[in-house]
């Protein structure tokens, strides 16, 4: 496990996500409008497609979430927990902004 630079902060439009290749893994990286960043697996367990980075981010009852663009389940940006099914959780990774770059530990 080590911190890896994935892109510049400017590469991510605020309140959207991108997908980064980190050590062979597909990682969805989201930037919010306060320039905080979050990272989770890009794999959507419901559609089995690598698409979570393309979901709409927001909050539900205060919990930061991304909605899968395929079948619209919500996943916590912080814990990876699926809000619709307590049995389902996607992997999350530490992420931070360092100067003008975004780093993910994976």
């Amino acid at each position, binding site marked *: 496990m080590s911190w890896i630079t994935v892109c510049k902060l400017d590469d991510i439009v605020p309140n959207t996500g991108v997908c980064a290749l980190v050590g062979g893994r597909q990682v969805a990286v989201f930037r919010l409008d306060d320039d905080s960043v979050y990272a989770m697996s890009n794999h959507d367990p419901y559609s*089995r497609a690598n698409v979570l980075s393309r979901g709409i981010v927001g909050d539900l009852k205060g919990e930061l979430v991304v909605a899968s663009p395929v079948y619209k389940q919500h996943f916590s940006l912080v814990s990876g927990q699926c809000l619709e099914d307590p049995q389902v959780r996607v992997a999350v990774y530490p992420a931070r902004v360092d100067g003008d770059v975004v780093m993910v530990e994976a």
Partner: protein
Amino acid sequence: MKTGKIVVIGNGMVGQRFLEQLVGRPDGAAGITVFCAEPRPAYDRVQLTSFFSGKSAADLNLVPEGFFERHGIALRLGDKALAIDRGRKAVRSARGHELPYDKLVLATGSYPFVPRVPGAEWPDCYVYRAIEDLEAIRKAARTARTGTVIGGGLLGLEAAKALHDLGLETHVVEFAPRLMAVQLDDSGGRLLRRKIEALGVGVHTSKETTKIVKGAERRHKLLFADGGSRETDLVVFSAGIRPRDQLARAAGLAIGERGGIVINDHCQTSDPDIYALGECALWGGRSYGLVAPGYQMAEVAARHLAGEHDARFADADMSTKLKLMGVDVASIGDAHGATPGALNCVFTDEATGLYKKLVVSNDRKRLLGAVLVGDAADYGSLLQMTLNVIPLPEHPEDLILPAREGGGKGMGVDLLPATALICSCNSVTKGGICGAIAAGATSLGALKKGTKASTTCGGCGPLVKQILDCELRKRGVDVKNHLCEHFPYSRQELFHLTRIGALKTFDEIMSKHGQGRGCDICKPAVASILAACWNEYILKPRHAPLQDTNDHFLANLQKDGTYSIIPRVPGGEIPPEKLIVLGEVAKKFGLYTKITGAQRIDLFGARVEQLPLIWKELVAAGFESGHAYGKALRTVKSCVGSTWCRYGVQDSVLMAINIENRYRGLRSPHKLKMAVSGCTRECAEAQGKDVGIIATEKGWNLYVCGNGGVKPRHADLLARDLDDQTLVQYIDRFLMFYIRTGDRLQRTATWLENLEGGIDYVRKVVCEDSLGLGHELEADMQKFVDSYECEWKKAINDPETLKRFRHFVNSDQPDRNVVFVAERGQIRPARPDERESALEAVEH
């Protein structure tokens, strides 16, 4: 106690209501016989004119299936009662029956008054009372050009509308100096006159018809007391009604000086075993020409007969609200300000054709009456204020003035007492409605069925709905249609807030009207509202985060994370060169191709990073975005039309191309589909679309709110035989009205089903411009049309946007998880097991 044999003479609206009231009581009669002179049982005379706009006699029928049989009532249709023998307590009929009665009920109604004008007995002089009269008028109208109604009262204007609808040049001749002299004052009458004249109906007031002679140009000539004359083919007399009291008169019952069978508070005549109800009766020196008091008498008589000796008729409210030739007219209480010391409060806007008058008590504390012309939306609340003596607000004028900042308009239904009469036609009180809601009638439909409220004239419909909403809210039922937890507004409300506040971004809207960060529900909804209001490029950085993935990548996401592309092919017309380009592009990028149901070509299996490359080639060949990814106008389908088809009557392809090019890219609450058929064979299936256009010999018929999908719905005809320009004007208005008022993800079909007033209301807004919004809606649409640009053309020329079209932000590799296998000569996404083995093969 049983009441013995009951004979009822007359089966009109009131007679029928009496029967229903009677059989609903535990102490009903031992045997009931009904004489009915007309050839059919009770029908809705109030809606008689709708007979001319396509309703059949069966539609107007008021008698539930099997009613007479179920209750053992003997109905003698077409058998007129001829005489009452009070001594032997028996009724003799035209067919020679003689029937004994214990109690007799007269519900003989009224007959149209025909003034003693020489010539009134000529052929083609009619009255307007029964279905048979209307049938005769309709038949005569086929060979006539002009028609004249004598009498400018309520019924006279109804008759004029009927003649107008039959295509006749129509005139109304009135003895009084104004129309609807009983209900309206001079100013109201003048405004109504102007509105009716604007519809092309001639109005001639202060005219006394003295003679009808043979005409020179037309069949008849009316001569007036002032020396003038007017030629006409048809004459319809509608100069008021008179109680049909001959039977009672001959039987020696007490009759009023000017006609009418005298009754007491229990509706008994001078013979306590004989009752009289409705328009034939005279109570307190008054006879009533409205159905509501008749219904009240029916109830009183039924209760009294069943042994409720305290059942009493009290003076009935004569307030009326109706729509005359598309003009709303209402009169409440003391409309003429006859109460001593009464004050008038008048608002007139001749520009938009509004006249509103309040009659207020001398101390300005209570409302005595009102007159409304042009807009009667406030009828329900003003009537309630009058009837229930609700204290007037500090500024009574606010009740009729256009709403002003901070000024509360009208009053909440919550203020009404339980005894407030809401539906005067059917005597339903607020308490009755609340009781039905408590008993489980929680939809407007169930409420109407259960209480009969709003089922006769429908005027109280909005009020009933308000009470329902209010009661449900009190019971904690969620009647709100908030977008989501972030916005306490419906889509329609948010649309207005955005437009009126000139808000241009999600952040502005959120900070002013919402809370939190938003979600996948409100963000795309706001994106759609912003696009409809301002039509800014949807991939601008400030709008991009709001877009669903389809809009974000301007393509349709498929189950494996790839996208499909549908270039626009307006009207489904495509030259061979462009067809070849689609084939070449599909071949080059290895895409699966399929023809869609809407005459387009869909290219599947494109990865995000391929989308701009594919579109560069498509744009170069002259294609533009087809918006298949958006909640927007998708396609306009067409048949080949008159150019090639042997049966086509109009060029449906050209119309489809023009329509598609006009509305392309229009963002709306949900996707929009349209179609144009070149003749009534309807090969383009236009009646299954949100907007369907079908060619006629004279132009185009416009259908709206059709749908295929889960719940198919045939579209409703909005307007007939339109020319090209009017067609586009109506579609502009219709679409913008839907976009403004639709809920999130609400197709036009569901929108219409939830719209109070349904297709008639849409027709008024779109074709008659009843809200005065027509120009604004057209201007909004024109602004949209003028600002259209192809989203893909813009995307491929903008490096910032293009940067987003890659799978990895830090690598040019494609997504290895996207795997295709071959099937029937094309690709398809691998199934999970196929994908596993394919991925393993690559890794080894």
